[in-house]
């Protein structure tokens, strides 16, 4: 059980402000690349766009550069301003650039046009789709906006069809139909090869992702533990520090805190509703807190199944059992003088002579090693044992046995029959069939 130190903050290495090229996201004309570059370089966006357009004329280099920058620049959170005039100018530049690229390639080589045109078509299609997937807002798993509008769908569909048509034209125009099979084979083989070669990269990516997720989960867990310790243990320790002179109070606080923490660390997350086990546990806790004794409850078997009866008559039986057990615990804590009390509860199959309908019986044993007493010689004015334990259990068909002696302390045995629901009863019935 080591205490973890909080991670030390990583020192910031750059003393001067580093301006990273970020794409403008809001109010971008196409991808916000030109605006981002302009922001980065500190020049007018239109100049950047002109440069892109000029480069595009040189065999489409500007278009390629723009596409690559679009891919590799990270989108910025805040966008620059784009006036309508600027926007119109940018649109014009885009058209000019694309047309220039088209024209230059046409001029340079006639045959290249049959490649350039489909590539431009593919580029426009891809740009349309990218724009949609690049927009802000909540995303679904595949990257589409959560609430896609008709326009979004139209753009995506148009973009996809442009890409498909463009690629189709390239394939049909360039590839000889006769050699289609061999070239397809070559493509498949190449893809398989690339896939094989990139396996380590994929593996590393998956591993990194897993590590990241594990670290995140660890962090969340740590925070939950820290907040729980803060709410419980640290508060209790603070209380104890405030009143160190009252040993009874300190003991009580420490015991109740230990119980709570133990339940949180090692116990399940079951609620006290309808659970006989939890009700007994709670009774133990209360008596511990009130009388400053240590109670160790041990539970065996399907105790809760006994109290979850289909006939609701079992609930009062369970309540009576818990109340009687609590009374026995209180007696042990008050009168025995022992510092430790054992509580043991077990659900058993009933013996052969059981009454009809009884499918399970729950026994609770409360034991102390204190002074003991004579159960047959209880003064008439002491109603605790007679009224709160014996009569209460007897009303619900159970049995009470008290064994006590000056040397061995006291043990109170409570037995309560339960009629459990059919489903659970079948299994118990099987076991009963072995003995009967």
């Amino acid at each position, binding site marked *: 059980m080591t205490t973890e130190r909080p991670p030390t903050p990583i020192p910031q290495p750059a003393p001067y402000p580093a301006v990273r090229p970020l794409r403008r996201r809001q109010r971008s004309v196409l991808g916000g690349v030109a605006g981002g570059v302009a922001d980065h370089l500190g020049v007018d966006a239109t100049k950047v766009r002109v440069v892109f357009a000029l480069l595009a004329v040189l065999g489409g280099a500007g278009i390629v550069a723009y596409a690559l920058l679009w891919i590799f620049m990270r989108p910025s959170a805040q966008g620059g301003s784009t006036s309508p005039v600027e926007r119109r100018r940018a649109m014009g530049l885009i058209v000019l650039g694309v047309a220039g690229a088209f024209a230059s390639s046409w001029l340079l080589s006639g045959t290249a046009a049959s490649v350039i045109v489909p590539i431009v078509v593919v580029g426009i299609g891809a740009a349309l789709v990218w724009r949609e997937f690049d927009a802000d807002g909540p995303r679904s798993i595949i990257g589409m906006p959560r609430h896609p509008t008709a326009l979004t769908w139209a753009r995506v569909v148009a973009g996809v069809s442009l890409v498909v048509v463009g690629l189709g034209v390239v394939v049909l125009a360039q590839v000889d139909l006769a050699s289609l099979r061999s070239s397809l084979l070559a493509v498949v083989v190449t893809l398989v090869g690339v896939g094989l070669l990139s396996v380590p990269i994929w593996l590393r990516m998956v591993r990194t992702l897993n590590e990241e997720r594990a670290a995140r989960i660890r962090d969340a867990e740590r925070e939950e533990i820290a907040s729980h310790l803060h709410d419980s243990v640290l508060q209790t320790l603070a209380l104890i520090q405030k009143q160190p002179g009252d040993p009874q109070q300190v003991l009580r606080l420490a015991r109740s805190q230990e119980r709570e923490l133990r339940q949180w660390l090692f116990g399940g997350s079951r609620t006290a509703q309808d659970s006989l086990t939890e009700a007994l546990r709670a009774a133990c806790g209360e008596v511990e807190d009130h009388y400053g004794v240590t109670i*160790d409850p041990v*539970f065996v*078997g*399907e105790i809760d199944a006994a109290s979850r009866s289909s006939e609701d008559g079992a609930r009062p039986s369970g309540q009576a059992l818990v109340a009687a057990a609590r009374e026995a615990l209180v007696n042990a804590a008050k009168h025995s003088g022992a510092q430790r009390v054992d509580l*043991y509860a077990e659900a058993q199959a009933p013996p052969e002579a059981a009454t009809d309908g009884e499918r399970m019986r729950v026994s609770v*044993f409360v034991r102390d090693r204190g002074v003991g007493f004579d159960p047959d010689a209880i003064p008439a004015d002491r109603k605790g044992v007679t009224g709160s334990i014996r009569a209460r259990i007897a009303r619900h068909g159970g049995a009470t046995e008290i064994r006590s002696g000056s040397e*061995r302390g006291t043990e109170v045995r409570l037995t309560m029959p339960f009629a459990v629901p059919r489903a659970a009863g079948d299994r118990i019935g099987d076991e009963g069939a072995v003995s009967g």
Partner: protein
Amino acid sequence: MRVYLVDDHAVFRSGVRAELSREPDIELVGEAGDVAGAVEGIGAAHPHVVLLDVHMPGGGGVAVLRGVDRPGNGAAAGAAGGEAHPDPVFLALSVSDAAEDVIAVIRAGARGYVTKTISGSELADAVRRVAGGDAVFSPRLAGFVLDSFTGRSPLPEPALDPELDSLTPRELEVLRLLARGYTYREIGGELFISVKTVETHASNVLRKTQQSNRNALTRWASRRRLD
């Protein structure tokens, strides 16, 4: 009687040292605060009994149990003779009484399991008993074992292991009384058998827990954690 103490909390170690120093027949021959130090120290000090913490950095008590070179690891039942044992026997002493922890160290070969709320004299008594080759159960440990052997659990079990029923009725009875907080002597008086017989029954339960029901207990423990 030579005792070695393994716990990563120095405050707790000094507490146990103070409590055990009142016992004339118990000598604390060494202590360690981590797994590596414990494995080394136990090998050098040759104690009769090792008091072993369950939760420690670096694998905990189970790692110590695995690390210590014990030729009689699997044949721990041979110690029932009552003479001094050549190999150290392990008594788990933990603040945790979660089923998984208890079952894990018992399976790994500890001869007993007591919680840290135990009083000094009870601890000394438990040390003497494991040194004599016996099993020491806290009521809670007895409850766990009983729960697994009676095979009743909230979730349906796929095909019960026939070995799961291998506890004799007498052993179940002893276990049940242990869970109710009885001492071995009281159980002897209750069942009209000698203390020696009670100890034998408890030892047999522990041996069966360690060996034949390893799988069933693991399954049970892991299922327990799920709900």
